[in-house]
């Protein structure tokens, strides 16, 4: 089976802190792979290295068998990677539609048209409406300013934008952070629909959601992989219970 993502011996130091320790992972195409671990385990640091926002001190990141370790973020996005952020990362003073259209333009490959008006482009507006519909948001939200959206709506919008480019590998950094229980369940349903269509790397603290969604899990403790396996295997792993579930649950 071919791998959507392969990580080889990744290491990252912040001064004296060894934030990522010899991390290796192999995620086959179409898998929903969760990364869990206690706070400070280095989950976000890992995602940022996979997406290129942080450079590892050593090791390799391969996407679809291609070495992207030294590629900048925007090139990785062009290769079919997308990510959502733990802390919502949208352009707050632009509208919902403009945020989505930005991603649509990226899929087209350029934003070099000085003259054509984006707001009068029916094709882009329709595509933006469809992107919202995919996450169950009504197209009437398009003209709203992002800063006027609720937290839950912003989390959904991030997911919608990540999906715009039809990514082959999507990195989700705690998509349920700060969501109410009803919103979390809605997000879980949306992520369940992604299963099999695209490869997902999911970092999440909501254990109920993680064990429901994940095909396999990697458990990270202090920057190190302590276990890899199916939800059942992880639930029954002594080391994991000790290191993680024991203290958290």
């Amino acid at each position, binding site marked *: 089976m071919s791998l959507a993502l392969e990580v080889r011996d990744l290491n990252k130091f912040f001064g004296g802190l060894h934030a990522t320790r010899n991390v290796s992972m192999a995620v086959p195409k179409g898998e929903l792979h969760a990364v869990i671990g206690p706070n400070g385990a280095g989950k976000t640091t890992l995602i940022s290295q996979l997406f290129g926002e942080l450079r590892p001190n050593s090791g390799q990141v391969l996407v679809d068998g291609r070495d992207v370790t030294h590629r900048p973020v925007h090139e990785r996005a062009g290769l079919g990677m*997308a990510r959502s*952020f733990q802390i919502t990362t949208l352009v707050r003073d632009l509208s919902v539609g403009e*945020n989505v259209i930005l991603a649509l333009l990226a899929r087209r490959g350029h934003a070099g048209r000085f003259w054509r008006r984006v707001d009068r482009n029916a094709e882009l507006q329709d595509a933006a409406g469809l992107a919202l519909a995919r996450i*169950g948001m009504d197209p*009437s939200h398009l003209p709203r300013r992002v800063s006027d959206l609720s937290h839950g*709506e912003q989390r959904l919008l991030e997911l919608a934008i990540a999906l715009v480019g039809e990514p082959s590998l999507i990195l989700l950094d705690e998509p349920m952070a700060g969501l109410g229980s009803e919103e979390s369940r809605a997000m879980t349903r949306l992520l369940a629909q992604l299963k099999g269509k695209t490869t997902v790397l999911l970092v999440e603290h909501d254990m109920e959601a993680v064990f429901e969604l994940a095909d396999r899990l990697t458990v990270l403790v202090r920057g190190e992989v302590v276990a890899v396996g199916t939800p059942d295997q992880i639930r029954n792993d002594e080391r994991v219970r000790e290191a993680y579930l024991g203290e958290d649950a």
Partner: protein
Amino acid sequence: MPNTIPARARPAMLTSRAVQARAADRDLVAAFVLLALLAATPLVLSAFGQEFWTDVVLRAMILAIAAASLNFLIGLGGLVSLGHAAFLGIGGYATGILADFDIDNGFIQLAAVLGASALFALVTGMVALRTKGVHFIMITLAFAQMVYFTMIGLRQFGGDDGLTINYTSMFGGFDLGRKDTLYYVVLAVLAVVMLGYARLRKSDFGLLLKAAKGNERRVSAVGFDPYRYRLAAYVVAGMTCALAGFLDANFTSFVTPGSMSWITSAELIFIVIVGGVATICGPIVGALVFLLIEEIMGGVTVYWHFWFGLFLIAIVLFARNGLVGLLTGGRR
């Protein structure tokens, strides 16, 4: 799939957006009104024998073209350059130096003005745009001061005293230096710059610049390299400002290193802020107010800069979107 998001307080939210849209529309309407008024100005003023004020308005329009190019950088890109006047000087000196070698062909001069400014913008932008915030301000200032001191040192082109331009630009049989026609050429350029900005800020290029200003990480994450687009904007703005320098050289028949000192750069920022950042009319309104204060207060007291300073403080405190923002009721 169920609509998972309750539409909480949606009407009120839409209104804030609508207010902004209306302000933008008023800004565009105001631009047409202003341009029409400017077109009538020389006729009205000469009927009253006030040709002096026509020259003041002409100067304001040239300054407004330069300020508009900076407004494009600040307003859309969030790029506060403190060295933008360098392009005014490059435009002026490219014209003056060619005239000094008896080349008064306007097409050649214009090509030199645009070519030199594009090259300077490309080279300095490639360095400056790698930095952010205060560092960007300092690097643009440093590049401009380099050009400033270079021109002071070049004695053969007048050095500190400036360079007198003996031949104005000739486009075939058309002499750009003629005052009556120059006014309308400048007005036409200003109109193109103002309406071009109005259009550009709604284009996908404008959207990308605004997004990169608001959240660079988001822009990279969807797959764009903000640097490339900022560099393109920086070159366009530099060339536009150099065009103002070219027009100014034809207006005053004179170019000095002072035109590219950091003080001139700061004045351009004043004009943009007083007029209203990211507005269409801001640069021309700011330039008119700036020159009127200079002319009127300058006649009363040599300390007019003091009063201008107070005025600027009042604008920043009470009208965050400048004079145009006050008139259109918009918010940033």
